[in-house]
């Protein structure tokens, strides 16, 4: 589980880490977009870090911290949606 983080007024964000973000600063945005690694079945998933709410605390979660465990990663359209 990730470390607890201090939360200011800014909305914290995360994103892909490691190989996926390997494009250097000199490259244009378009080029780095093309280089972004996509998921592929049977292959290693791209790592990421993301802010999270967990049992009363704000924490930072890195996917690779869960190596050694089975992970179920679920996306959904939004909080307070109905389905």
């Amino acid at each position, binding site marked *: *589980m*990730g470390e607890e983080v201090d*939360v200011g007024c800014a*909305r*914290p*964000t*995360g*994103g*892909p880490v490691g190989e*996926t973000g390997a494009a250097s600063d000199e490259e244009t945005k378009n080029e780095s977009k093309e280089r*972004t*690694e*996509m*998921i*592929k*079945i*049977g*292959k*290693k*998933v*791209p*790592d*990421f870090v*993301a*802010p*999270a*709410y*967990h*049992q009363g605390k*704000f*924490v930072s*979660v890195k*996917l*690779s911290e*869960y*190596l*050694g*465990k*089975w*992970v*179920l*990663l*679920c*996306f*959904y*359209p*939004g*909080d*307070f*949606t109905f*389905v």
Partner: protein
Amino acid sequence: MSIDSVFVHKMWDEHELSKMVKGGIPFPMLSDAGGKVGIVYGVYDDDAGVETRGRFIIDPEGILRGYEVLTPPVGRNVSETFRQIQAFQLVRNSKDTEATPSGWKPGKPTLKPGPDLVGKVWEAWKTDMAFD
């Protein structure tokens, strides 16, 4: 994981989800503002600015074993997700010597792929085993 902030996650958990699940959601509720992670996982809907119902099963080595993506109006089948995880765990524990045929669930027979099984699946597996 959704595009909502951790602040909204907190409110949703406290005001609604904790009324469905005692003590609130036990796992981390991740925030993906801007859909940066969702884009990489192919679930970010650019037009709507939200993430679709993507579900990814990742094994202890970080290998993607299965995924399912639904558009927003239809909910998932949690039992089917658990069944798939149980099947992948069985295969892993068998060191890939066993496989789970269509319709497998815990307690049902598995297949042992190899030369002896070629052309003999019809003996080990019947069509009605595809259904509950």
